[in-house]
């Protein structure tokens, strides 16, 4: 147990954690473009009364369907621009720009 705890602490220190939030609200990704460093985790939260999902247009990631207040997180480990949309309501689009 002790060893595991030490490893977790070490991991937390070694990886600079940056968490970015994107709310899904009124059939929109509230921040349609966000810029994060490599290694950042982005969390989407559905604030609507209807389900949405988060699907990357190049299949890099896909969330399960998010009902009200459910969240989905994805860590971006490579630089680039990742476009995504809600495959239920495809007018809803956004992108994550990942910088080195």
């Amino acid at each position, binding site marked *: 147990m002790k060893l595991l705890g030490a490893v977790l602490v070490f991991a937390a220190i070694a990886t600079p954690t940056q968490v970015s939030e994107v709310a899904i609200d009124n059939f929109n990704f509230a921040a349609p473009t966000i810029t994060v460093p490599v290694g950042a985790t982005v969390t989407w939260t559905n604030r609507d009364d209807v389900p949405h999902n988060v699907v990357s247009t190049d299949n890099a990631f896909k969330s399960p369907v998010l009902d009200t207040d459910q969240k989905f997180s994805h860590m971006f480990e490579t630089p680039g621009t990742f476009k995504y949309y809600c495959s239920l309501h495809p*007018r809803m*689009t956004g992108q994550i720009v990942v910088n080195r």
Partner: protein
Amino acid sequence: MATRDDEQGMDRRGFLECMAWVGTGAVWTMASGVLKGTPLEASAYGAAKMAGGLRFVQISDSHIGFDKAANTDVTATLREAIAKIKGSPEQPSFVLHTGDLTHLSKPSEFDTLQQLMSELSLPVFYVPGEHDVLEDDGKSFLQRYGKGTLGAGWHSFDKDGVHFIGLVNVVDLKAGGLGSLGRGQLEWLEKDVKHLKSSTPIVVFAHIPLWSVYPEWGWGTDDSAQALAYLKRFGSVSVLNGHIHQVMQKVEGHVSFHTAMSTAFPQPAPGMGPSAGPMKVESERLRSVLGLSRMSFHAVNHPIAITDVTLADTM
């Protein structure tokens, strides 16, 4: 037509309203869910009462599983819609459900829907809405309702000389786009209608509107023009949709477009709210914005007559 209506004692105003319905120009009627008492609805109901022809009912957007403020008991309101159908003095031959049977595609939601609909003891034809194909590419839907259908659930059948076509425009949607039929389904549609006489009345039913109601909210279908092109030679085409949880109508030449109310919750008129999401109304008003649509063909060479009936209506 004038003679027939005069025989039925229709006054001049009623006649003009009827002509507006069958007119060749575009007629736009927009209402936030209720058509009761409007001239169009009155004349359509009059025609339905005269009819000895084919009758069927459209219900839509039952969203079994939804439990938010806009309607915390969608099972009860669907049950009321079913009671309305059962209580009608003129029984329909069958029912069309134009999608969003469930809210989250859960097996338990499909089971509840199935159990409620079975109380009708009528054939029910389904097309899926986007809420019915959430997790598993529509397998839950197709296991229950896919028998005799192709692709994601499209199919056609004939009833009393009318050709019915159920289309699916809620799968494989592209980022930034609207509803989509896809090439495979369009090719099937072209073949499906190829051998029909142009005098055959056509009824198309699909979840998302096949006309551009309000693209800003995704209320339209990217490749619907191609589908309508295949139907252009037919003298009577009726397009029945759901998805927008309110009644809208448009007549364009020989094609009449109609969307039905939801049995679960209303949505705002286009652009009249922050988004297309569920709209909460005062609880005493809820049943006046939920309902179903009764359809009939007076005769094969007549346009379809559509009566939108709210849960608050007594008829």
